[in-house]
């Protein structure tokens, strides 16, 4: 396949992103809707409860859902305006097909389906089954995650299926499995409110999971002390009792030094360590040289602050450890996670009230999406695709011969590299926008241009789908029934508020028809999403992620059910490990040595500055959804380069001067925002934008060896001021007028 069929500008004219501020038909129906549908926000891992207002089969607004216990009506701005997507002018209302020189033209479903299936068959018979790959996403429901994993293995018969949780959750998941044998946050959020000490590592909670902030502020009202580890003073770091401005890429040195301090000062829970853990000796000997001074030199955090952190953590009776992408998106993300877990285990503060260890899932169904088998190395129930017992069980659930089940495939970034090398020729994607969200995205673009056939299932024409041959118009979150699993492990019900508009179809219906045309319709004979869920329950039965006892009815009745929930009369498990029986082979929680090592690309004379990336509150991931919502764009209209005044002065950079940021992979220009809320050696760019504004042109595609997560959070860059002052953004104009 060649380049885009037509210029980007023309594609944008036809398919957006255009901005919606109000429902197409105005606010009519706002006050007197036909119905209110209880469901959940389609964005981050908090999965806030919300009610959607529906009038004439269109979502026309929202009403807070006060009874839902996690958020009690509270929402962030994304949740408030998400309803505008259902009737958005950019919605794909039918399948479209690429026409050279003209762009994309509507086609009927018959054409879309038959052409797709014949291309799949052609490519697979020419190059082998694995030459057709699938990329999935964890904004999908549990049902769809499960169905995609099965579709890839049973209908496409390919090993090469992976998902965008590879960019988000996998380092935490791998660390969790190593230490505990199960990949889930240990506690419900309710426990957080009463912890004595809360340590937040690499998580801009206030902007990325805003409704969780309420729990943190409440904990503080109850007297909790807050430690925040971050290279930037984010809104949550602003209020911390102890702020540790870590140099990007050095978190494990901090955790190692803290562990060493706990050992030297005997701030340990010996009973817990002796009876319920293994690997302690080996782990502490790996950090015995990690003095506070040594860690200061590496992390840039004053030794006194590290001591204070270790004292606060070590002497507390109850505590909560929270972390997110800031420590996970590294070529040593798993080690960083294990470093955090070591601190939790050393103090034995797990499996008890108000003591927990929670990793915060970024994507809406980041938790559920990593349990049901659309990862390249995993089968449903977080089972291992290389484990013969696991394979046999899932093959029996699927009604196939175990020998016909493909093995482990390539992870997301490796998969795109294989496309680039010409080894993979065909691709189907659903709910993944790699050209914006993968690192080193100039490589991703070149890869897409090499595909012989690419079909995308999506509801908007995102930046990646612009390269497709065919785009099948899929469904939004509010147009399809299912379940999601929140960051605290609560399985919640997603209710369809309206049918997909126009000729768009539910994603499950699209996959079902493709499967039938690929000759395996009997394996996908689901009548509805509950059928899929019931199969998923069986597939998860007896695994570390047991959903068997959860039913749709039970979820609705109880405002969600926490897994594991092995039997129908089981109430679910908000707090894990109360019995101290861990799911590792020896039944103990494992300490793991997590020694500090350098990031993949240290700074040098040519590229002397650290670049890190992240999110802003008004946007979500690759922005496919949020960049179409006017009010969200208005509050942060363009990516800015956050830079400390001393670094700005060194280069003579002025406020809003456009700065060229260069790395070994690409270059891009951003207006500077000069702030003292960032380290002096680090610059920050949010990554939600595509094309010329894409921060991921710059980031590095080096992966964690265990989790295969890319190192988004640190690479080396250089800055070249252009002398041009950017015109005031909509944002600053808005501020001036206030």
């Amino acid at each position: 396949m060649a380049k885009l069929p037509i210029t980007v500008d023309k594609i944008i004219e036809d398919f957006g992103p255009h901005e919606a501020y109000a429902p197409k038909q105005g606010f009519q129906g706002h006050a007197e809707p036909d119905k209110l549908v209880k469901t959940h926000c389609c964005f981050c891992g908090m999965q806030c409860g919300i009610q959607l207002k529906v009038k004439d089969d269109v979502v026309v607004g929202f009403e807070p859902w006060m009874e839902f216990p996690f958020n009690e009506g509270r929402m962030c701005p994304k949740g408030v305006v998400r309803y505008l997507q259902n009737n958005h002018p950019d919605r794909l209302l039918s399948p479209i097909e690429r026409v050279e020189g003209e762009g994309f033209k509507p086609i009927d479903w018959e054409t879309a389906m038959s052409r797709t299936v014949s291309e799949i068959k052609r490519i697979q018979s020419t190059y082998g089954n694995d030459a057709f790959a699938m990329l999935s996403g964890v904004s999908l429901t549990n049902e769809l995650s499960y169905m995609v994993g099965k579709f890839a293995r049973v209908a496409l018969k390919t090993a090469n299926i992976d998902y965008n949780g590879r960019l988000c959750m996998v380092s935490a998941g791998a660390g969790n499995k190593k230490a505990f044998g199960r990949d889930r946050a240990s506690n419900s959020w309710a426990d957080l409110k009463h912890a004595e000490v809360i340590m937040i590592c690499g998580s801009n909670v206030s902007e990325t999971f805003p409704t969780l902030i309420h729990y943190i502020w409440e904990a503080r009202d109850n007297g909790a002390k807050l430690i925040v580890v971050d290279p930037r003073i984010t809104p949550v770091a602003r209020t911390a009792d102890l702020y540790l401005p870590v140099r990007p890429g050095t978190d494990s040195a901090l955790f190692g030094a803290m562990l060493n301090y706990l050992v030297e000062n005997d701030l340990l829970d010996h009973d817990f360590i002796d009876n319920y853990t293994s690997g302690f000796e080996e782990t502490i000997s790996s950090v015995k040289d990690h003095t506070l001074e040594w860690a200061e030199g590496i992390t840039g955090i004053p030794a006194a602050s590290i001591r204070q952190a270790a004292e606060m953590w070590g002497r507390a009776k109850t505590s909560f450890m929270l972390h997110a992408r800031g420590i996970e998106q590294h070529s040593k993300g798993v080690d960083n996670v294990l470093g955090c877990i070591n601190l939790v285990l050393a103090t034995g503060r797990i499996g008890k009230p108000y003591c927990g260890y929670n990793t915060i899932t970024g994507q809406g169904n980041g938790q559920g999406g990593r349990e049901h088998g659309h990862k390249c190395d995993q089968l449903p129930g977080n089972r291992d695709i290389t484990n013969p017992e696991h394979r046999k069980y899932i093959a029996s659930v699927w009604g196939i011969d175990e020998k016909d089940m493909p093995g482990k495939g390539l992870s997301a970034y490796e998969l795109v590299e294989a496309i680039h090398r010409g080894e993979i020729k065909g691709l189907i994607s659903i709910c993944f926008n790699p050209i914006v969200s993968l690192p080193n995205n100039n490589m991703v673009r070149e890869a897409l241009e090499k595909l012989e056939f690419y079909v995308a299932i999506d509801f908007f024409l995102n930046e990646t789908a612009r390269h497709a041959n065919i785009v099948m118009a899929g469904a939004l979150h509010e147009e399809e029934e299912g379940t999601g699993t929140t960051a605290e492990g609560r399985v919640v019900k997603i209710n369809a508020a309206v049918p997909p508009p126009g000729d768009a179809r539910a994603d499950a219906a699209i996959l079902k028809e493709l499967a039938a045309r690929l000759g395996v319709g009997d394996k996908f004979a689901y009548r509805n999403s509950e059928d899929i869920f019931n199969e998923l329950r069986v597939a998860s039965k007896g695994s570390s992620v047991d959903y068997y006892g959860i039913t749709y009815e039970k979820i609705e009745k109880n405002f969600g059910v926490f897994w594991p929930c092995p039997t129908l009369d089981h109430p679910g498990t908000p707090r894990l490990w109360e019995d101290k029986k861990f799911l590792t082979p020896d039944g103990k929680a494992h300490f793991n040595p997590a020694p500090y090592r350098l990031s993949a690309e240290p700074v040098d004379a040519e590229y002397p500055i650290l670049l890190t990336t992240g999110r802003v509150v008004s946007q979500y991931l690759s922005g496919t959804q949020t960049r179409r919502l006017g009010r969200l764009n208005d509050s942060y209209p363009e990516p800015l380069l956050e830079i400390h005044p001393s670094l700005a002065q060194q280069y003579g950079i002025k406020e809003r001067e456009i700065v060229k940021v260069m790395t070994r992979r690409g270059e891009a220009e951003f207006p500077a925002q000069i702030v003292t809320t960032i380290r002096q050696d680090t610059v920050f760019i949010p990554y939600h934008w595509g094309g010329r504004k894409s921060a991921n042109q710059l980031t590095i595609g080096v992966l964690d060896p265990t989790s295969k997560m890319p190192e988004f959070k640190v690479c080396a860059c250089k800055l070249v001021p252009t002398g041009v002052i950017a015109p005031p953004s909509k944002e600053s104009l808005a501020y001036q007028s206030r």
Partner: protein
Amino acid sequence: MALEPEKNFNPDMEFFVDMQRCIGCRACEAACAECETNGQETMIHVNYVDRAHSVQTTVQVCMHCEDPACANVCPADAIAKDSNGVVHSANTSRCIGCSNCVMACPFGVPKKMEAAELMMKCNLCYDRTSVGKKPMCATVCPSGALFYGTREEIRKMRPNSDPVNTFQFGAQTVHTKVNVMMPKGSTALRVH
């Protein structure tokens, strides 16, 4: 002139603003703009205090003064306070767009909507509060920087703060229906 409020307005419920907790997310602005009577304009405003040095934001909502300066200076009698103490947005048929209220308000709340030649301000979500619901902004605020409920509830929830609704502007003292949360023991806020 007092309007007759709906029977369901609960006078025990009050509005509390806790700036410390604001994370600058603008959910309040987005939610306020959802109200059809506002025509997508937000009546609550979030600002950075000094973005060059801090991420601290403040949030400004109508304080619903006991003796509202905006209403007092209105030559057209367009602004009215009802018997529950809610100071309402300008009556569209009366407002002449003179901006007196904009200049008189010590908190800088009323805005003149240039296109409509009309003053608009927060009316405490009268469409919601009059039927026993909470105002939109205070409902969605993810951080609890905005809270609508009883004095008893907030005292229990925030043991380290006290609600304050007395403001000292030089020699002038202003009492308001809306409270700001201040450190324990505070009784008044001296503004300048």
